[in-house]
């Protein structure tokens, strides 16, 4: 016990430092499996470190190890998988993929979809159009559930609902005991009061409206009610005897509920997005196809569209072939992939393939199985070949690209860095503050009138993120506010971007590079800030020309500017254009930031000085 605790602690410590994933999907699905069940299926026992390394090579990550309450010799492995791999979301799929990856299984599963002479039918009524128009179905015949597999069956539906189904808004799954219902089935949308059934796990029959009220108390289902609650009609699936199978996407009927004794499962997937509905259906049947009498064979259902009269058999396993020249795989990965090895690499990744000779070389034809909806293009095949080969083996022969280019900087950034150095040398300490603030901070607290130029955020989680700053004062003043322990005089500066609305830019807003410096002391010290301004101008070779127009000049500003103390504020003008302001901040502004010393400030537009 101690042994595994210390290893997992070090693992989680290293993982607790896992920082913001910038490229990868931030919503990384996690699948929880019993370690012992997983290793049993793999036919091999791994140490935690060995298993972590296996996951690493495959492209998943052992995130956490949790003890199981009441069980001494087993733990739960929490494994993070890629958001596009719906076939790894449950123990069945994960173990199947890893088994094949490690070579414990040489044969790839043969997924077959077969329609009997008289398939079950699902009739789609016109009333569902515009409500939840898509439905696809399948039957798993002669299935045997155990407690573990039954729980996995329920959990997978939950996971899919959370991920690809986008919390049931796009797709939802209903599973039923086929022997308790009889086809043909119909999918329609009816006013809530006309629908009446006993929902799952109750015996009370209620209509759609009462059901909504009843389920409002159910913490698990309450978040989904808004999807249909206020609609005039609710989607509903009936069997030929008027039994309600389900009220998508909310809840199934109690009549057709699945138990451990269920032998034949009817799956209906309703959706607003057909592509996703099919992916979800494929996932459900391929994952649990391992428990049917004929493994991986699913019975098709005929979905009849009443409007068009067209019948489609779902699921449809017409093989999808992705063809790619072997030379593409070579040239994209950068290592020699031989025709002898390529099929092995693909097989490791559950992709069956055939080789074909062609005038331009060998072509690899991959038959994409229904478990791999993530394969969109030959590049997905290429990645799997590379994983099969081993990313870290490529390390040995890797070299940087030979692209010959010269480095260069953005002029505004170069000037900014030069100014930063000089201003620090002049005795000012640099700060880097947040670019988002509250509307009040951006305007009222610094004595400015709302000019409508601030970029506004629609969905801030806190008040602190209402607008993008339109000047740099707030960050500096808040820094002073949080550094009361520092001895005066305090001299701070920041050269950074503010955000402004502007119709002259394609998005309707722009950044502006600005400079702000503050001086806080027992005396306002205007002359020190002024000295900094003079120095900056000197460094930029802008002479002081109080009467001429070739350099900079300082002009007393209007006392109406409430940011500054009347009579202690001036505009900085360079060659006729106003580039900034300089002055002593108004005592009210100082008080707004809980400061007890006067502050003088300089605020310049750096872009105008470029």
């Amino acid at each position, binding site marked *: 016990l101690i042994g595994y605790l210390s290893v997992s602690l070090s693992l989680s410590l290293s993982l607790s430092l896992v920082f913001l994933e910038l490229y990868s999907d931030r919503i990384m699905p996690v699948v929880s499996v019993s370690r012992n069940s997983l290793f049993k299926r793999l036919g091999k026992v791994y140490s935690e470190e060995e298993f972590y390394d296996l996951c690493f090579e495959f492209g998943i990550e052992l995130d956490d190890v949790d003890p199981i309450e009441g069980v001494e010799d087993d733990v739960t492995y929490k494994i993070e998988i890629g958001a596009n791999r719906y076939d790894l979301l449950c123990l069945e799929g994960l173990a199947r993929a890893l088994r094949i990856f490690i070579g414990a299984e040489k044969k790839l599963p043969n997924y077959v979809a077969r329609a009997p002479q008289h398939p079950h039918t699902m009739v789609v009524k016109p009333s569902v159009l515009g409500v939840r128009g898509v439905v696809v179905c399948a039957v798993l015949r002669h299935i045997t559930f155990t407690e573990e597999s039954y729980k996995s069956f329920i959990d997978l539906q939950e996971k899919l609902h959370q991920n690809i189904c986008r919390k049931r808004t796009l797709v939802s799954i209903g599973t039923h005991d086929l022997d308790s219902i009889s086809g043909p089935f119909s999918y329609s949308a009816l006013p809530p009061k006309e629908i009446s059934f006993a929902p799952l796990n109750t015996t009370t029959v209620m209509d759609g409206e009462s059901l909504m009220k009843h389920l409002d108390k159910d913490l698990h289902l309450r978040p989904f009610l808004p999807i249909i609650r206020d609609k005039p009609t609710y989607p509903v699936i009936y069997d030929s005897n008027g039994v309600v199978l389900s009220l998508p996407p909310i809840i199934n009927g109690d009549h057709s509920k699945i138990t451990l004794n269920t032998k034949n499962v009817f799956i209906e997937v309703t959706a607003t997005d057909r592509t996703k509905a099919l992916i979800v259906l494929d996932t459900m049947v391929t994952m649990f196809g391992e428990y049917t009498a004929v493994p991986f064979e699913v019975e098709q259902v005929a979905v009849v569209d009443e409007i068009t009269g067209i019948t489609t058999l779902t699921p449809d396993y017409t093989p999808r072939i992705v063809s790619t020249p072997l030379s593409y795989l070579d040239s994209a990965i950068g290592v020699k992939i031989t025709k002898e090895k390529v099929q092995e690499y693909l097989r490791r990744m559950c992709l069956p393939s055939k080789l074909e000779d062609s005038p331009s070389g060998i072509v690899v034809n991959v038959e994409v199985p229904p478990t791999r909806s993530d394969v969109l293009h030959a*590049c997905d095949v290429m990645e799997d070949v590379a994983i099969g080969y081993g990313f870290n083996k490529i390390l040995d022969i890797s070299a940087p690209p030979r692209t010959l280019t010269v480095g260069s900087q953005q002029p505004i950034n170069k000037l900014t860095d030069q100014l930063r150095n000089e201003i620090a040398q002049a005795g000012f300490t640099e700060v880097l503050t947040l670019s988002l603030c509250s509307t009040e901070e951006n305007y009222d607290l610094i004595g400015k009138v709302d000019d409508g130029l601030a970029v506004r955020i629609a969905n801030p989680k806190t008040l602190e993120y209402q607008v993008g700053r339109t000047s740099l004062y707030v960050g500096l003043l808040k820094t002073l506010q949080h550094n009361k322990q520092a001895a005066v005089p305090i001299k701070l500066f920041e050269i950074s971007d503010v955000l402004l609305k502007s119709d002259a830019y394609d998005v309707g807003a722009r950044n502006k590079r600005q400079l702000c410096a503050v001086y806080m002391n027992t005396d306002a010290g205007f002359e020190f800030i002024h000295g900094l301004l003079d120095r900056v101008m000197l460094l930029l070779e802008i002479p002081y020309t109080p009467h001429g127009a070739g350099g900079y000049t300082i002009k007393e500003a209007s006392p109406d500017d409430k940011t500054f103390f009347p009579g202690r504020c001036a505009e900085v003008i360079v060659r006729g254009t106003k580039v900034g302001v300089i002055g002593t901040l108004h005592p009210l502004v100082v008080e707004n930031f809980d400061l007890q010393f006067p502050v003088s400030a300089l605020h310049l537009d750096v872009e105008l000085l470029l």
Partner: protein
Amino acid sequence: RVADGVEDITQHHLEIVNKGLVESLDKEIIDNLKRRKLVVQSKIKLFKIEKGPKFSLNWRVKQEAELTRELILSGDWKTAEFRSFNFNSMGIPPHGGHLHPLLKVRKEFREIFLELGYEEMPTNNFVESSFWNFDSLFQPQSHPARDAHDTFFLSDPAETLVIPQDYLQRVKKMHEEGGKGSIGWRYKWQESEARKNILRTHTTAISSRMLYKLSQQAVFTPKKYFSIDRVYRNETLDQTHLAEFHQIEGLVADYDLTLAHLIGAIRQFFERYGIKNLKFKPAYNPYTEPSMEIFGYHNGLKKWVEIGNSGMFRPEMLLPMGLPPNVRVIAWGLSLERPTMIKYHISNIRDLLGHKVDITSIRNNPICRFDK
């Protein structure tokens, strides 16, 4: 009669002490008298003073602390006495300004890119359209990252003004139907969704703009680009997360680039950062394939840590731009805050970025050296 007479022994002892003959008494007796507080033992210190060689009645002779201007000009330094110097106290810290720690690290990363011949991209727009931030990168509109939960959407300006229309149509087609070897995402793509303005979630939006610009050139020229700038995530805040942070990104666009080149470019970059031992884990991003998470062995922490993310941009992203089909683009990125926090042993990001930073910590922050 029991006794012949009374003899006051204590009085007798005290008389002996008074006579100065205390040594003749037993220790036990003295201790007893002390205990009874009848005698008090006190110390008398005696000093013997003699005149030394430097004896003087003149009070004015003092020891100098330092050489001064007067001493030099007057020549008195030759005869003056100098106090011995205490080298073990601290000096007076020099006055001056200081640069921000995060920006010191930024400068080092910028220099790495410039030394390697990378060109800086113009990243001065925090406001970005969903089109450039997501759609042009082939990230589908139903993707969870486009949720209001994770991304800052804007109420003003809510919609972007201009998107190049012919390019938009090609992007739409790729999402809806695929083409050029891809089956696409197969859903209904909405222009209104693409027009929604956000605060950019990654600087990859800028990379996309630059690649589009590159594709509009008459003749393709290979490029190496980089950027280091601010990005935004609307997420729950904690010790290591703020809503805004900085992203570092490097990318190379050239003919026939390979995964091996990507690994090589990443090694070349991180070697200058001081991490030579790397390993790569297959990962997933909507817009790169293959994708790899980069792990490095950190000598200071003595363990493997995730240091970045990378990939080759999908053809579905590059082909609608009009880039030649055998041009491949490889890219990698990491955050600026993470290496800074590791280097300077900072555990709370608010001690590094924002207004809660202690100014003293900025003053006391060492030079950023990647080689140490």
